[in-house]
């Protein structure tokens, strides 16, 4: 009985391994992250070269974006450390 099951499994594996996979040439992540960040890149260029432009306000803008990124990443690490107390 077990040899029959083994034979059937072997046959199925042979069929499965002969199937060609559906692998898209570009991982979807590149596309998705590209679409998400492309508008942000446009924004940063517009902030740097658009008019009217004041150096102080451009600094405030990029400074605030940087602070938010740091806060976001810091919150992830901070929360991990805080909740790590329970383990």
């Amino acid at each position, binding site marked *: 009985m077990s040899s029959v099951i083994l034979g059937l499994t072997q046959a199925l594996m042979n069929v499965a391994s002969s199937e060609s996979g559906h692998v898209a040439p570009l*991982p979807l*992540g590149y596309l998705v992250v590209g679409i998400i960040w492309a*508008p942000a890149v446009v924004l940063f260029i*517009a902030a740097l070269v658009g008019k009217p*432009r004041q150096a102080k306000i451009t600094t*405030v803008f990029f400074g*605030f974006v940087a602070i938010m*990124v740091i806060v976001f990443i810091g919150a*992830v690490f901070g929360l991990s450390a805080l*909740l790590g107390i329970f383990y």
Partner: protein
Amino acid sequence: MHTSREFFPFIGLLAVISGVAIYGYVLQLTQGLGVTGLNDVTIWGIYIVNFIFFIGISHAGIAISATVRLMKLHRYHKIARIAELLTIVSLAMAGLSIVIDLGRPDRSYLLVTQYLKRFKFSPLTWDITAVGTYLTLSATYLYLTLRQDFKLLSERFTGLRGKFYGMLIPLYEVGEKATIDRLSFWLSVTILPIMVMVHTTVAWIFALLGSRPLWFTAFAGPYYIVAAVASGLGSVVVIAAVMRRIYHWEDIIEPMVFKGLANISMLTTLIYIYMMMAEQIGALYAGPEAEFLVSYEWIFGSFSGLFWGMTTLGLILPFAFLLWQAFKPGYVHIEGSAVACTILVIAFWFKRYMIIVPTLSIGIQQVGIYAPSWVEIAIMLGAFAIPILMYAIITKIVPLIELEEEETH
């Protein structure tokens, strides 16, 4: 920023609910996910429902603000900030909902340290990217548009309060408004496509799982976005109506603002009902066996009470009221619109429950029974109390209506 006597008991009630939720979460941390109703089959429950729900609500804020700015819809400008704050608070809660759902939340940092390895293939990583970018740019947008008001407040108040507002506007320059307007315009242009991507990536967390019936569908992105717009705008109607009454802003927020928002919420609800019908007909009459089983349970089986209650009382009834109102020229019932939108928002929470739970509990093994435990329910109530608490406190610091607008009335 007037504070009524009722404010403090209200804050106290929210704090108590939040406290019970924190106690429940500590129990979950110390005893594990065994204290929840989750099991080996139904691995996601109301925490993930909350996550999708809060992401949906977050769409309203900056969407309104950006659209108002780009299309010059000045009438809606007065509720823009109410909506922007809603976006920030609900995005924060969406992120926390994910952490709450984790069995080992202390390993959350792996999302950052493993990012470069994972982003090529992991929808969860795309979601973190989209939500993080959206939150960063939304907060930047809100801050830049607040600077002018912080300047006015720093001059209006003396002492510590004045100094506090002064600290919030580093590098302030007279005449910076023109530059800020330009940056806000570009932020609006940028945020709208990112907002679409946020809910599309949320949808892909589910829709790229080929083995899960009713999740694996090409129109998951649009389906989720429509629900987000309907529930998000509905939430803004509710909050704006409450704020209008509390702060006596009858002269500032025109009744027609409510009608406009309610109309869009009504139309998107109609589109959503249509999409839901298309989905269910496909699954019930031509779907593979697993899809048929889940769809059957939705419509005729163990989830039918929830499904029909949600559809008729939660979606169709408020839709009918808002449609009737839409066809009466010049007429708007603000309280009625707020009640209808509240029902819509609650219905969309249950709709998210219908997306998650039946597919997991019936979809593959047909053995998973899920009922949320008291710990989950307490944490869920806290997940609603905490953002309301945050919102209520922020309204005491940040002017909800631009001061220029307020002073002209």
